[in-house]
């Protein structure tokens, strides 16, 4: 075998893509040719550094959640229960928005690692909740159904103001788990948008509302009377601020 012929086969040789007969021919040539043998050594080294050095990227949880949501959607749409279908419609809208927004990802937020991780957890939970069937454990537009449902399920009795007349109908409530907190979540709607209000007990002192915006989602965070609260939505920020002000002012 000539060097020219051999050089052609060195890649397949290193990749284990040659027939046994071909492989033996190349091996025989390599035994007597330092140039080609050196080349094999280089190729092997290169392959090894690429295999060890190149990163494998795990698919982000949110991507998988978005894909799973697109599986659920057609199954859900065949159901016709009135309350469930209303919620499904909101949820589907939410999912479509999540899908359409190209940048719904676990992006690092650039302040305070602890709060940033918490924001991310709240946002992930919000997006998960938009999948059909995940939004509410108790679906009701009556605060007297929603509020008592939380009794014995979480360590606080969440505020469930009725804001219908202000354009924020109550959708229901659910139990969620956010960054190792059992959270009471009260769900409101505004047109086709959903607002999740998370609350759980905290020992930290009161804090006025502060806002973080993350690729089309807004998170408003505050603490009052030993309760940590997060309101999350893809609603425009002025409307979400108005909601938060109304929510805080209501009894």
């Amino acid at each position, binding site marked *: 075998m000539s060097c020219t012929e051999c050089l052609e086969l060195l*890649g*397949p040789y290193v*990749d284990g*893509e040659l027939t046994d007969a071909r492989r033996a021919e190349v091996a025989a040539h390599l035994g007597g040719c330092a140039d080609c043998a050196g080349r094999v050594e*280089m*190729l092997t*080294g*290169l*392959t090894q*550094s*690429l*295999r060890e*050095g*190149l*990163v*494998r*990227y*795990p*698919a*982000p949880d*949110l*991507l*998988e959640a*978005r*894909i799973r949501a*697109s*599986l659920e959607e*057609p*199954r859900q749409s065949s159901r016709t229960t009135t309350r469930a279908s209303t919620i499904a419609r909101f949820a589907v809208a939410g999912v479509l928005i999540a*899908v359409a927004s*190209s*940048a719904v*990802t676990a992006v690092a937020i650039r302040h305070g690692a602890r709060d940033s991780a918490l924001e991310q957890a709240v946002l992930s939970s919000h997006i998960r909740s938009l999948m059909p069937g995940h939004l509410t454990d108790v679906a009701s537009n009556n605060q007297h159904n929603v509020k008592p449902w939380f009794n014995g399920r979480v360590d606080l009795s969440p505020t469930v103001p009725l804001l219908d007349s202000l354009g924020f109908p109550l959708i229901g409530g659910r139990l969620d788990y956010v960054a190792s907190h059992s959270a009471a979540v009260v769900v409101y709607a505004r047109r086709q948008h959903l607002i999740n209000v998370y609350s759980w007990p905290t020992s930290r002192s009161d804090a006025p509302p502060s806002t973080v915006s993350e690729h089309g989602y807004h998170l408003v965070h505050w603490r009052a009377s030993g309760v940590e609260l997060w309101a999350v939505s893809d609603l425009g920020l002025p409307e979400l601020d108005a909601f938060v002000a109304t929510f805080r002012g209501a009894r």
Partner: protein
Amino acid sequence: MSQREVARFEQIVLPHLDDAYTFARYLLRDEHDAQDAVQEAALRALRHVGGYRDGDARAWLLAIVRNCCLTLQHKRRDHEARHPDDAIEMLPSRAPATDARAIRSSDRALLERAVAALPTEFREVIVLREVHDLSYKEISRVTGAPLGTVMSRLARARERLAIALRPTQEAG
């Protein structure tokens, strides 16, 4: 879509999601674009899973991912052609090496950079081979290129990488 198709999708496509995302990351060199491409690929796979016949599910999915990536890339190119100021190539910068760990991570960054700098048709074969460990036949199936073309592209990709990586190898 039937329950059966959804079940098939869960069984055939979801196990290869990490592969799909990794391949898209290397093709598009952008995490957001990669997520969009994989999302789109999953939707296409879902539509066609009924027609999928038993075989190599991973190669089948990667071929779909590749098509979605190329479509997205063409859209971006059109956009960049109209808005040339947006066309800034983002590649990892090389960190100065100070200790053993930093040297290793800078080697890694250099590898990533060398691979990112390859033209797409070379980059895809090298990634399918070295990251996904696909055989030539599988690479041919994913890229739609004949075996001979796969072989010559791999060889040329390796030539370029060997040149790009030479300085560290001598220093190392």
